[in-house]
């Protein structure tokens, strides 16, 4: 398969290695399946673009991009943006849930302390 540049080979191989690493993280339970989705899709798409020069040149022409390298970078950037947005959404939810839990815990602690002091008063 004709590669356009050495960079393309490096990018393609790098993407494959990333995909393998992400899957291994899931296997070792360091990363949940949910978070692996975007990483796997991103690295597979980049790897396909990197290894299939005809597809890469075709997409570059259709999108009107000036160079093939830019297409790969554009896809990479798009995935990075998607990942960041996804993480922001998740982080927002975590923050909100954290608030709910903190509030619940505070209310429960108040309840326990009130019960304890009532118990102490009863004993006296």
């Amino acid at each position, binding site marked *: 398969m004709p590669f356009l540049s050495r960079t393309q080979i490096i990018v393609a191989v790098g993407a494959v290695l990333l995909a393998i690493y992400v899957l291994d993280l899931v*296997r070792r339970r360091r990363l949940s399946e949910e978070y692996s989705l975007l990483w796997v899709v991103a690295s597979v798409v980049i790897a396909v673009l990197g290894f299939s020069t005809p597809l890469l040149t075709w997409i570059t022409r259709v999108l009107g991009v000036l160079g093939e390298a830019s297409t790969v970078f554009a896809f990479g950037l798009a995935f990075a943006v998607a990942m960041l947005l996804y993480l922001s959404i998740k982080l927002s939810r975590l923050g909100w849930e954290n608030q709910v*839990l903190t509030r619940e815990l505070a209310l429960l602690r108040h309840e326990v302390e009130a019960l304890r002091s009532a118990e102490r008063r009863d004993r006296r």
Partner: protein
Amino acid sequence: MSGLRVLVIIPSHNEEASLPATLAEVRAKCPSVSLLVVDDGSRDATSQVAIEAGVPVVRHSVNLGVGGALQTGFRWALEHGFDVGVQLDADGQHDPDYLETLLAPVRAGQCDVAIGSRYSTRTGYRAPWHRRLGMVVFSGVVRMALGQRITDTTSGFRAYSRPVMQVCQHDFPKDFPDAPLLIALSRRGFRLVEVAVEMRERVAGQSFYTLGKQLYYPYKNLLASLMALMRRPV
């Protein structure tokens, strides 16, 4: 009937409409079992209707998903000395008439997990096409992984023995406790048995499977099934 203590765990998320009937039906048909409602962060009166029915309720402050709710139920069952935990949907899909059928192989010591399946014999239920495709695919995945035929991997009507609950309280899928869970449990040496049951249409409330989840479901479960196979059983 052997003296096993059975807890029916009902994970509930916004099920105020269907929960009272479900609780009453289990009580009427199976007076010997105990009930627990896990309110998974409902915004409606789910907890209140369960309390009014006199059933213990454990409430989650935030929504954890079906798996997370079940895990809470397992913890509760273990702490309260139950021998078997039964998962039963709040929406009335699962007929308590079949509870004894489901429990029989666990009571007899023939298996550790009994799965109430609506597909293993001819029953009236007919799922939408994408659900049926999913059934076939994941039934095939489980069959390839375990060499065992489980037709209904997504069934939410299951009985888990105490040793299974002991494992599951630490390690359980948070979202979809389906094919990957069955593979992981079987790889740990637990015996799975499928029992034919009839299921009904849901009475009220919303299905857990939204569109986004339906798209994510195949990816997650295929990957998790593969990982369950690749991980060394602990």
